[in-house]
């Protein structure tokens, strides 16, 4: 196994200087895992706050403003409340699967975070199949939703889970194909190499027309894959109560909720990495300060997250048949044509490079 752990070499060398090799590498892995978990639990909570603030802004309200300055501690307080709540469940549910389901969802979304290059140094797991790994991991999360819906022994939860399964399986195809379109330009699945290629211009510029089409398809399919409005049939309040997590309470509900927001961050982060150059600054203006990479990466990601929130408060919800028609009759054929167009562009050397 060659896991390249390239987060801050100093800590790495210090650890290896005071401990034998095997223990040091295990300690390092555990440290990295703890750091990632801590950062993203808190980041997920702040995404929830951001969502509420954006929603309030769109509806001309103020939003949460009591807890902490400008409501900044609101979601932390909510999380503490959720931790202290009683875990209830339905009487004749399949307890084992019912308790297992939230972990599927949260673990699969946290695993995907490991492969993102936040900056040149801050990159936990640079696997040589990065993009494929992301797609593989994201296909497992849906199992948690299906299990949660089925084992709750509740009709609404079951219908919500079925809808979610159908939706995720169909839109996964579009996400994968639009990313594959971009892989044609980079010629590599490794995320660090994809960023290396973009030093000659971000991929959305390099691939011009097919890249823009791929980005639009990716954003539509990505929003659908995270089960967010306008594709939130899974938890359509007016029809299904809360959808697949109707019967969950306390921390288990919080896992589903947090996973949704982390998934949104992941979709935005993939878009930022593949289409907009990841941690690269525009025209290399801050290339001399590598630390600023994190800022650029998070900035790009948050802009895309804002775009997804914008979708949510702008478009009405689709019907299930409209949802499936959109994917199978429009997005998928368009995507396949786009793939051929991109292959032609790359073959004839029509990419724009600076």
């Amino acid at each position, binding site marked *: *196994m060659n896991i390249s752990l390239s987060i801050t070499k100093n800590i790495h060398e210090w650890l290896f200087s005071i401990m034998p090799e095997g223990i040091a*590498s295990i300690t390092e892995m555990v440290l990295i895992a703890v750091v990632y978990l801590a950062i993203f639990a808190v980041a997920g909570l702040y995404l929830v706050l951001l969502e509420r603030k954006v929603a309030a802004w769109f509806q001309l309200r103020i939003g949460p403003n009591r807890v902490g300055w400008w409501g900044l501690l609101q979601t932390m307080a909510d999380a503490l409340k959720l931790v202290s709540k009683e875990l209830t469940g339905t009487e004749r549910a399949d307890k084992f699967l019912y308790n297992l389901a939230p972990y599927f969802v949260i673990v699969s979304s946290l695993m995907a975070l490991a492969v993102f290059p936040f900056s040149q140094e801050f990159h936990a797991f640079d696997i*040589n*199949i990065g993009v494929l790994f992301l797609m*593989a*991991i994201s*296909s497992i999360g849906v199992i948690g939703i299906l299990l949660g819906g089925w*084992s709750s*022994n509740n009709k609404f939860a079951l219908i919500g889970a079925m809808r979610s399964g159908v939706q995720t399986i169909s839109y996964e195809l579009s996400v994968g194909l639009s990313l594959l379109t971009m892989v044609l330009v980079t010629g590599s699945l490794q995320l660090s190499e994809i960023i290396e290629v973009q030093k000659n211009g971000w991929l959305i510029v390099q691939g011009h027309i097919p890249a823009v089409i791929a980005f639009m398809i990716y954003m539509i399919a990505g929003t659908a894959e995270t089960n967010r409005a306008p594709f939130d049939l899974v938890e359509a309040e007016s029809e299904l109560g809360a959808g697949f997590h109707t019967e969950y309470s306390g921390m288990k509900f919080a896992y589903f909720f947090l996973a949704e927001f982390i998934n949104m961050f992941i979709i935005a982060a993939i878009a930022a990495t593949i289409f907009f150059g990841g941690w690269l600054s525009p025209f290399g203006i801050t290339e001399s300060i590598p630390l600023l990479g994190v800022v650029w990466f998070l900035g790009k990601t948050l802009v895309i997250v804002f775009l997804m929130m914008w979708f949510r408060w702008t478009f009405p919800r689709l019907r299930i048949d409209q949802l499936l028609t959109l994917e199978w009759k429009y997005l998928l054929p368009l995507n396949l044509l786009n793939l051929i167009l991109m292959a032609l562009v790359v073959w004839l050397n029509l990419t724009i490079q600076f």
Partner: protein
Amino acid sequence: MEKIIFYILAFIIIAFAIASVSSKKMLRSVIYLLFVLIGISGIYFLIDYNFLAAIQLTVYAGGIIVLIIFSVMLVHHVEMELELAKVSKRIIVGIASLLGLALFLVTIYSHEFNVVENSITTTTEDIGLGLLNYEAGGFILPFEVISLLLLASMIGAIIIAKGTKLTSKKNDTV
């Protein structure tokens, strides 16, 4: 370290495989099967077959298991339990499984495995070039045959899904 991880994975695979066939609840055994498949992909990761591991996760864990869960969800209720088979059937199945196990063990222990000294990570590029290679050692023929098979099964699926409509149209013309 790799040895420890291997034994942990092997233990997970064997334990969940047994749980999968002995569980009385249908969806639970599907989930145990899922753990077996994830364990196998873990072993692929361990031997640095990253591509195969990711494909194992996407196709088996993400695709086939989701399909099985779907079909179980459609026909099965939470409170239902599977019935135990008759004693005579259980004995026959037990003997058949033991024979299979014996065959595997004999094959594994009689074959001499070569230990690869320096493991090289297989990249996706190598796999792609190997698949489209039509010289000796290339896989272009199986690749094309499989793609033909997939196309045929896709057309078959469409025919089955649209079956009633097609036949009713025929009846109209006749």
